[in-house]
């Protein structure tokens, strides 16, 4: 597939990187479609029609399609091929069973607008997943509609606002957000019309309670707390914090991206949290797909359930269903909660992802989910313990499911964290999350997950030690890493300055 006639110098089958349109040959085709089996109708006015040569898509053979995409796939790092300790992202084993179940015809080929009656199996999956997520978080009102974590946040904030509106407190337009928060938190708050007020983190990595107290007031709509925090820490003052917010009349939103540290150990609802979301593509191990699709169900306490996004699934024996024309045999049905914030996307959520998460929860069960959290925490602490002589810790205390290292010492020796991250790639290990949370200088956020073995963690530790040594012995190698990947470091500045965003005839 390479069009080069010089041998591959370093990688056995470094493929030709040209784009499909560069390989396109007029008249080639990768598929045949049948001819019409009906009489042809009149074609509309030519002015409405597309010229036949206007559509420039690739013309390649079917083998070309398969070989091209197969070779490209191999340029990726992935869970199936690499240790991937990308903090906050929970890159753990995505069980193959989940994918296989999601592709069953009875799930893959149902239309979202079929009668409830004809999709009872799908609705049962959704109903039970609602129940289970409610139980796992202690927040029994569950909406599966949000399509990712950020949409879950937005839905949660709309719920908060709607509830406050109903209380007559529409003026509450401030979201308090810790300085360690993920970018989606302030972005979602802004979309929900809230102004963001940042709350400080104290020297122990906790919310600065005094700062919070000072900022919580009659304009507070929500406090958005990531729990455990992006520092990998459980907030010890959580009860006090929740009280402060509640006393100020606001609601507490928990960003549940790190829920994988809490399963069976604590329930958010028990702590007084009002609303949270869960990233099923993190905690419940649905695959990330190179950047989605995910699913970000929103969970709320009982009193807020009527605000959930449209639709939720109800069980007709347990709910006083208001729907007019319901069949006797329709056990589960889609419905719109009474005070719903409405539809936040086209249909009912990322169903194919929901099926995977539900399969995963069945496989693990309550006992297994607790084991997930325990071992995620044990693995992170093990890495932290083994690396703390070489690397500074963001905060020096035991962590939850991830540990945030700081490459300060290494930066002082001339090698910023970015380069350590890139150098890890040469060892076949994906880089940790870099420079996040923003409050930690030279942050390297390491989340090993429970699905990786001690042997893998030990190798990671050894590689980190080797790189630390290389910083003294061979800093150039680290500074210019990676050396063994399909590309050396890419020029991101030029990409942004002179954007080329699609194939161009003169390409390459």
């Amino acid at each position, binding site marked *: 597939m390479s069009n080069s006639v010089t041998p591959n110098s370093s990688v056995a089958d470094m493929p030709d*990187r040209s*784009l499909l349109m560069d390989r396109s040959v007029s008249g080639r085709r990768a598929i045949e*479609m049948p001819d*019409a089996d009906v009489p042809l109708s009149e074609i509309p006015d030519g002015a*409405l029609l*597309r010229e036949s040569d206007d*559509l420039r898509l690739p*013309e390649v053979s*079917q083998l070309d399609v*398969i070989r091209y995409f*197969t070779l*490209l*796939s191999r*340029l*990726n*790092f*992935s869970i199936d091929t690499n240790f991937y300790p990308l903090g906050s992202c929970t*890159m753990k*084993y995505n069980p193959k069973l989940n994918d296989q*179940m999601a592709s069953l*015809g*009875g*799930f893959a*080929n*149902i*239309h979202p607008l079929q009668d409830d009656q*004809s999709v009872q199996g799908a609705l049962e999956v959704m109903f039970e997943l609602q129940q289970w997520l409610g139980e*796992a978080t202690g927040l029994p009102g569950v909406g599966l509609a949000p399509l990712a974590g*950020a949409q879950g946040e937005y839905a949660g904030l709309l719920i908060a*606002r709607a509830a406050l509106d109903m209380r007559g407190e529409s003026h509450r337009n401030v979201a308090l957000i810790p300085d360690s928060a993920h*970018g*989606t938190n302030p972005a979602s708050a802004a979309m929900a*019309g809230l102004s963001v007020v940042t709350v400080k983190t104290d020297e122990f990595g906790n919310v600065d309670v005094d700062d919070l107290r000072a900022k919580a007031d009659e304009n507070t709509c929500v406090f958005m707390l990531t729990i455990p925090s992006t520092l990998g820490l459980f907030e010890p003052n959580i009860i006090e914090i929740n009280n402060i917010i509640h006393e100020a009349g606001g609601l507490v939103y928990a960003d549940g991206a790190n829920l994988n540290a809490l399963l069976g150990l*604590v329930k958010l609802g028990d702590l007084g949290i009002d609303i949270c979301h869960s990233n099923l593509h993190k905690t419940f191990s649905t*695959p*990330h*797909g*190179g*950047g989605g*699709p995910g699913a970000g169900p929103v969970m709320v306490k009982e009193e807020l359930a009527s605000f959930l996004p449209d639709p939720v699934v109800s069980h007709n024996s347990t709910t006083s269903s208001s729907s007019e024309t319901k069949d006797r045999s329709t056990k589960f049905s889609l419905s719109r909660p009474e005070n719903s914030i*409405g*539809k936040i*996307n*086209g*249909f*009912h959520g990322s169903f194919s992802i929901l099926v995977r998460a539900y399969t995963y929860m*069945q*496989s*693990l069960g*309550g006992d297994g989910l607790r084991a997930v959290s325990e071992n995620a*925490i044990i693995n992170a*602490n093990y890495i932290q313990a083994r690396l703390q002589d070489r690397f500074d810790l963001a905060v020096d205390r035991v962590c939850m499911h991830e540990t945030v290292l700081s490459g300060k010492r290494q930066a002082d020796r001339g090698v910023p964290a970015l380069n350590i991250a890139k150098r890890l790639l040469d060892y076949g290990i994906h880089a940790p999350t870099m420079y996040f949370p923003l409050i930690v200088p030279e942050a390297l956020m390491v989340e090993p997950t*429970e699905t990786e073995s001690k042997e893998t963690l030990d190798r990671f530790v050894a590689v980190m030690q080797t790189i630390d040594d290389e910083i003294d012995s061979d800093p150039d190698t680290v500074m210019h890493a990676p050396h063994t990947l*399909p*590309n050396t*470091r*890419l020029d991101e500045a030029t990409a942004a300055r002179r954007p080329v*965003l*699609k*194939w161009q005839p003169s390409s390459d």
Partner: protein
Amino acid sequence: MLSNVASPHPFIPNTPSERELMLSTTGVDSFDALITDIPEQHRNPPLRLPDSASELEVATRMQALAALNQDAASRPSFLGAGAYRHFIPSTVGAVLQRGEFVTSYTPYQPEAAQGTLQTGFEFQSAVAQIFGMDVANAGMYDGPTAFAEAGLMAARVSRRNRILILDTADERLLEVADAYSRYQQVTVESIDIDSVLNGDIPDDAACIAFQSPNFLGRIEDVQAITDAAHAAGALSVMHTYPIALGMFKPPGAYGVDIATAEGQPLGVPLTFGGAYVGLFTSKQRFLRQLPGRIIGKTSDTLGRTGYTLTLQTREQHIRRERATSNICTSTQLIGLMVAVYCATMGPSGLRKVAELSYHKAHYMADAIDALPGWSLADGKGETFFNEFGVRCPIDSIEVNRQLAELGIIGGLPIVLPSDVGGNEREVPNGMLFCVTEMNSREDIDRLVYALSMIGT
């Protein structure tokens, strides 16, 4: 039940002895010492979930649940309205099996994610090409959220705050746009075609947003709407159906400013409505106002071509509350399906799919129109693609119920303005039918025959 002599679960490798060793390396003598920050009274609550189950048990249960659904692949189906049953070539499923695509994260380390990035670039190239637009982003959550974000983008670009949506659009689009703008200084309103064409457009209109083919499958007068919008200083925002663009002029040809669509018809199975992918395109000059991820071409230190996420300063992880959108995890893998679909279908394949859908739909529409008691919702003469409204002699929910008994999934029951008096009825008296290349003539004839029996 979990094991306590072996590793607890196939997904969790730590054996009891490793666990002990790791805890002791950590310097604690029990796991509990690691979670003392959790308030004691709330620690270790009961978790009322079933116990862990074996793969065999789980698979058996899931298969049983799947079997409870009546899937649209094993019976004739005429449902569309935003989700479409089109042919999916074998290549899509084959590529989707690649674990390297499925189990990687958002390409934050581009050197280790060229597979995702280059395929994403192919996606952008194909989408921009199909739409005839300058640029496409790497995908949105789904069609309706893409449309909603297009409205918000139009507001940012125009610095105006009224999003006007033509009333022939799917109500779902309106609802989502409303949810997306509810607390921003932006309003979402409905407008009718006469107001648009008469130039009756408020001067703080950010955009005229419309759907074509519209909810009832009709092709709108895109040029006229776009011209009217521009004349009023507003943007033209079009939501479309990408398969139709295999045959009909694309938004770019009309000067549309932002065009969006549901990407599902391009190689993605129905899966009860998700996960799908939103297609989002615009004119070049609005580039820096685009929501979502964008992949750009660049070169590495050795001068070789490579791809990377670009224009990230628009995004939440850099710009935070000033980002163009809060979107983070998006729909890359569904975008890959679209990219493989487009590569496989090529120009002739996509055109053929459009034409087959068109001709079969018209064949069916003519046949239904000829049935006594049944008629098309529009008179003849309107141009439609592959969906059309039908006026039913009886409650259309009842029609569907009778069709279901024959193993046919009917259309979508809708409310059409009543013939007498013009006031809306509560009971759906209409049906929105959709026909694609997947509907054989035999299936169509079966449906029409069934309707003819219902009519009488």
